[in-house]
């Protein structure tokens, strides 16, 4: 056919091309990608278009607790706020928390586990005992303490970011407008750091065992005999070969962290009222579900769909990335 395909035939199908091919044939995983794309895009893009989505924090008390209608697609809550826009804005926060925190935690976990697994011996022992100690700590309490101790810095961070976008000499109204979208994200920075700093433990264990396994194989021996540096061997040859389990674990971590965010926000760390995340919307909706079920239904629908999709995608990736599965 075309030039490119000829070349790829000559190169032989790479591991990644194989995996992509297998993933495409997995209908559940493909559907999951599709669902995720729709949810992520609508949360990220729709609120950015001027005038399309109502202000998620605008209260209209006389219009409270309305069931879904043409004006308010998902109805209104107990303060007359539009649930549709709250779900979209809340989704932004939940997704941001899920992705950024997972990125932080996986990055730390990969580096820690890879170094421990590659160096072995005393360093490995030391690093893994540190992991043991961190495992033994009560996760929730440590996250709260850590988050609370970083929290005072967020005020400065918020002010600086607002100045950056709105200009330091802008009017109060302009500053407040900028603050409306800057603040929900900057106030979450302690949460990103605190969860990220403590949830890398399992990743590091997985990576370490992978690295130990791969480091004993012949092609690594070959790389070493070529005189490559430890850094190159570790990050160019070993890690790419252990990415499969890491990716799978990552897709399964994101939903867990989204759930954890809901817990923390409820405890006062993280999302501050009147801003919301899916976790907060669900908590508020669950309290009022007998009277106004739509308050619970729509946020749960989005949250559950995202969790399912991420789980299906994770399953699909695990199958697709399994090097032992047959090539076709």
């Amino acid at each position: 056919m075309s030039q490119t395909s000829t070349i790829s035939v000559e190169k032989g199908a790479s591991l990644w091309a194989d995996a992509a091919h297998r993933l495409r044939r997995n209908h559940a995983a493909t559907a999951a990608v599709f669902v995720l794309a729709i949810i992520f895009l609508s949360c990220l893009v729709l609120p950015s278009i001027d005038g399309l989505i109502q202000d998620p924090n605008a209260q209209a008390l006389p219009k409270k607790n309305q069931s879904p209608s043409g004006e308010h697609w998902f109805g209104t809550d107990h303060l007359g706020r539009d649930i549709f826009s709250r779900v979209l804005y809340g989704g932004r926060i939940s997704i941001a928390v899920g992705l950024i925190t997972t990125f932080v935690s996986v990055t730390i976990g990969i580096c820690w586990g890879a170094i421990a697994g590659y160096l072995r011996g005393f360093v490995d022992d030391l690093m893994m005992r540190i992991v043991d100690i961190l495992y033994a700590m009560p996760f929730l309490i440590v996250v709260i303490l850590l988050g609370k101790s970083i929290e005072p810095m967020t005020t400065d961070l918020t002010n600086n970011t607002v100045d950056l976008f709105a200009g330091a000499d802008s009017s109060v109204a302009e500053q407040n407008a900028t603050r409306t979208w800057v603040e929900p994200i900057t106030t979450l920075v302690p949460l990103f750091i605190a969860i990220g700093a403590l949830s890398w433990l399992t990743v590091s264990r997985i990576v370490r065992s992978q690295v130990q396994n791969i480091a004993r194989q012949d092609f690594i021996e070959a790389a070493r005999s070529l005189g490559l540096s430890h850094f190159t061997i570790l990050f160019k040859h070993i890690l790419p070969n252990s990415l499969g389990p890491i990716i799978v674990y990552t897709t399964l971590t994101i939903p867990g962290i989204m759930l954890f965010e809901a817990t923390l926000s409820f405890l006062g760390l993280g999302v501050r009222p009147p801003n919301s995340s899916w976790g907060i919307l669900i908590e508020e909706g669950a309290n009022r579900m007998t009277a106004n079920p739509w308050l619970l239904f729509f946020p749960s629908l989005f949250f559950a769909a995202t969790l399912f999709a991420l789980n299906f995608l994770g399953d699909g990736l695990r199958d697709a990335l399994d090097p032992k599965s047959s090539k076709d």
Partner: protein
Amino acid sequence: MRRLLLCLTLPLSILTSCQKETEVARANREGIFLMGNSAEPKSLDHQMVTGVPESKLVGALFEGLVGDDAVGDDVMQPGAAASWSSNEDLTEWTFKLQPEGRWSDGEPVTANDFVFSYRRMLTPDLAAPYAEMLYFIENAEEFNKEQITDFSKVGVKALDDLTLFIKLKEPVPFLPSLTRHYTWFPVPKHVVLQHGDIADRFTDWSELGHIVGNGPFKLIKWRFHDVIEVDQNPYYWDAANVGLNGIRFFPIENPYTEARAFLAGQLHTTYTLPTDLIRTVKEDYPEYLRQEPYVGTTFVRLNTTRPALDDARVRQALSLAINRPLLCEFIMEGYAPAKSLTPKMGSYEPNPVLEFNPEKARKLLAEAGYPEGAGFPRYSMLISRPSARASAEALQAMWKEHLGILVDIQNKDWGSYISAQQSLDFDMASAGWIGDYLDPTTFLNMWTEGNGNNNTGWHDAEFERILDEAAQKAEPQDRLDMLKQAEDILMKEQPLLPVSWYSRNYLLQPNVKGWHPLLLDNHPWKALSLEP
């Protein structure tokens, strides 16, 4: 597929096979009253607490000189005292104790126990947060503030084992009613001293296994954040007339959870009912819903030692920007928009000074140096339970809309919510106050300097002078007029922003007998009984 079906049907079949009797049905059989009590108590030492959840427990474990009546707020029943009398001008009172009065360990309750209790409450080093409730006693305030050190000068004496004599600094016609408040309850001298000194705060004496009371019930189990169980106290002097075998207090902080527990047959009564559930309950379960008047005010407490909040103009502006009628119509349903701090009480009705006037609010805020909210510090408002979040978010939106002021909302559990306010470690707090007795001073006296329930950092010499003067007035109408003046000063200064006047909404099983609407909501536990 079969496994999936099994997964789905198994829980269902378990659920349906568990259609046994509800907890309430079993409790009815056993004569046990199940009550939602909102929060884990800070302590059971009633000289160290200030909250309503604690008062419910204390009322079961202890008894004051005068008892509550099940039907009328104004009716006095014998309590630890069998009878009482006063001199002509209502300043000297003699209480005759129950000859059969005993602590729950069998020791007799004596007049000395009361003298010891009031001495402990007033001991400066104990720093009891509610000591002011005893300031009606002659020289009590002086002793509490270390102006005198000789307790024999304080107007409390044990004439003999069963006779207590109290001399007041001013005429107090409502003294019998006052002694129904838990600050006037006795503590067991022999047990308190066994676990520490008279001035030791939070000793073990009030813990499970040690605590001894003179009330109709005794503590038998205390599982933190789960349940507090009390059973009938066999040594209680009126044990024959106690209608319940026991009470279980459940500290359910989330009122939505509490309402669900009630509707699932796990509680006889709830502590409260979130206002947004009233409509559904009214339609679906009208037999459970209770809506009753209650002397109480919800307000926002301000820390007037914080910059900006130390300026009365700013506080006025915050108050003027609150649209109270809107709030009460759509969020605090059933509550009335507050027009001042004290709700109407008998012949006392304060001047209706509070209004919604965003125009004037903006002007005052600009005068104070924060035009359009520019440069206003970022403060956060404490709330103690999720149901308070709706009204807090509404206030947040009103201040943002009308004043350009941004306020955060912070949730704390009951204990740290109270501590933060007592140590002035807060900016604003959404709070409420329930009257302790039927007199406006229960709302006004707390805003004086050093009062354990003030917690605003605000005090005013003129305000305190008028209160003192009012206390000396013999003519009731003159006294109320003076109190009205004091309230005007308070509302001009606004160290607190009244929001609404309570009504009490809650759920009650119809088979609970002896439970009648009471303004102060102090239902005597011994009068309750359960119909099977």
